[in-house]
């Protein structure tokens, strides 16, 4: 531990700042430099020059673009994300926080299902390597991974809701049983990915010398599997879990649209189409920050769990 890890953490966190500035500038400019602004969308058919000018002055859209950007960043640093123009008189935080809560709950459930199924399937495939069961398991999960959400959702809705009558399609909140179907559909492609990586990881560890040593010194098979095999084989899962969370967050867009779930994906698309500048920017920054910090968290977790990659370890021992 010590200075090495802390210094590394500080460097990585500092590096996140230019990344987020670059993203915010890119999206800010893309939104501002194109014709049509939130005021046009807001007024629609009742467009009136005088009223539009008033509204633009109120939101600050009459200022030069660099001034608008600096003002945006200033407000952002004080924790003010701006106001929504689509949801009139609501602040961005009031608009996106409930959506984030819904998406986060669904994302966590999907990750739990994905890993809960993916890890055992990967282990199973690895243990049956060489028999026909291994390619069959991996192959069938590769097939599931190949089905886009917008193909499987109408079919699954038809099968489970209309034909079998097991579920109801209306959205009744995140903790309502109706959420089961969308959560399962989001997590299935993840299961395939997790199973593949788990299988490869187990096969690699099974070839290591320390496993042969453990068996040779007469440890019980259970101890070998839990202490030596699984512990090492699960290491790559840290990366997968860390990177899957933000991915599921952004990837649930189609499921949210098809099931009518009020999550961030749907809000993002609606804000884009309504040119709701501040909501779009807030969601892009939120998504990017999740990605960046998940990456850092993964690297730090490795430092804690696997001493071989501990940053600055050489300085301590040597």
């Amino acid at each position, binding site marked *: 531990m010590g200075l090495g890890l802390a210094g590394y953490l500080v460097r990585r966190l500092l*590096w996140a700042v*230019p*990344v987020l500035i*670059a*993203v915010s500038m*890119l*999206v800010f400019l*893309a*939104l501002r*430099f*194109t*014709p*049509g602004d939130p005021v046009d969308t807001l007024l629609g058919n009742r467009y009136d020059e005088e009223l539009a000018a008033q509204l633009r002055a109120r939101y600050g859209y009459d200022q030069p673009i660099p001034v608008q950007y600096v003002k945006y960043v200033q407000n952002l640093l004080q924790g003010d994300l701006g106001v929504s123009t689509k949801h009139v008189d609501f602040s961005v935080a009031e608009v996106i926080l409930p959506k984030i809560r819904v998406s986060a709950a669904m994302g966590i459930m999907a990750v739990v299902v994905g890993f809960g199924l993916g890890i055992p399937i990967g282990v199973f495939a690895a243990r049956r*390597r*060489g028999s026909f069961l*291994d*390619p069959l398991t*991996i*192959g069938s999960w*590769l*097939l599931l*991974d*190949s*089905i*886009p959400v*917008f*193909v499987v*959702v*109408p*079919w699954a*809705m*038809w099968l489970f*809701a*209309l034909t079998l009558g097991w579920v109801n*399609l209306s959205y009744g909140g995140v903790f309502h049983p109706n959420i089961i179907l969308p959560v399962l559909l989001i997590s299935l492609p993840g299961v395939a990915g997790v199973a*593949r990586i788990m*299988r*490869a990881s187990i*096969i*690699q560890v099974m*070839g290591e010398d320390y496993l042969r040593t453990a068996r040779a010194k007469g440890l019980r098979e259970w101890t070998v599997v839990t202490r030596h095999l699984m512990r090492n084989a699960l290491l790559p899962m840290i990366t997968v879990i860390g990177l899957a969370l*933000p*991915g599921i967050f*952004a*990837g649930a*867009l*189609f499921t949210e649209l*098809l099931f009518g779930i009020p999550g961030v994906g749907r809000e*993002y*698309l609606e804000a*884009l*189409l309504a040119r709701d500048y501040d909501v*779009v920017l807030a*969601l*892009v920054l939120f*998504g*990017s920050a999740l*990605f*960046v910090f998940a*990456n850092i968290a993964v690297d730090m977790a490795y430092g804690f769990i696997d001493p071989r990659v501990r940053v600055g370890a050489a300085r301590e021992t040597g």
Partner: protein
Amino acid sequence: MAMRVDSIETGALEQARPRRLQLLRQLARKKIAIVALVWIVIFYGAGFFAPLVAPHDPNRQELSVEARLQSPSGEHLLGTDRLGRDILSRVIYAARTTMLFTLIVTLSGSLFVGLGLGLLAGYRGGWVDAAIMRVGEVLAGIPGLLIILAISAAFRPRINDAAFWLKDNSFLGDDARPIVFFLVIVAATILFSWVGSARIVRSQVLAIREQEYVLAAEALGASTWRLLLRHVLPGVLPIFLVGLSGGMAGIAGTEMALSWLGLGVDPSTPSFGSLLFEARGVRTFQEFPHLLLGAGIPVVLFFFAWNLLGDALVDLAEPRTRGR
């Protein structure tokens, strides 16, 4: 001098050629990979020869009640959609869109930009390497689809203006709009697609440039570009192709996702995204399942084929995880 450089060149090629052939020969032994490859060839072939293969004009509408939403029949093998258009023809033209999109994005993004920047970063090192890799890190660290969506949505009105201008002032005529729409999503996808291949290529270059034959060619005074193209590139290629095949499904999926949301290709261009969007309703599926199945099954098989092929190639490239 020139002769000597030439002889070293053939030496390098001789070393590279068996490696490439070996990969192909091993691939041929995997039956599943061959089946996958055959489907990919059929898919791309149908797209390439769309005007010859398609039985009907994909955009010809027939609005009479009998002509609309027909179930599959001898005349329309996959039935017709809400506007009486032949679905098989639309699927074949959608395969053309997928073919053009994946080819242009991989050729320009992964091959030209990714391979080029990867070679440059790995070979030059120093600040060139640092700059390229930092930019790549920024792009890899953010959710690509969200940004591509934002770019596509934000530029849409401006694209319309540009398309009208091109229509009046260039030889493109009525094709201007679809072409400009297509190029915008291509550009937005390329922005994110080069990073993966650049990283793979760079790490390979770092290993290869230490080989004796590269040092020898360098000592003989071969130019940087000659070195990269004739000596380093052949060694990088196999791993690069493995990475490429793994990314193809994702690139094709980006276009379909954007078109599904109405932010992709021009509505007049058939795309699997818009075909599947029209088939999205659960009641629609109950009454007219051919809408979803006709477009969905080719797409699923296409993704499945790329996944299987990518999986087989990774297995060959990393023999450690291969079944014994």
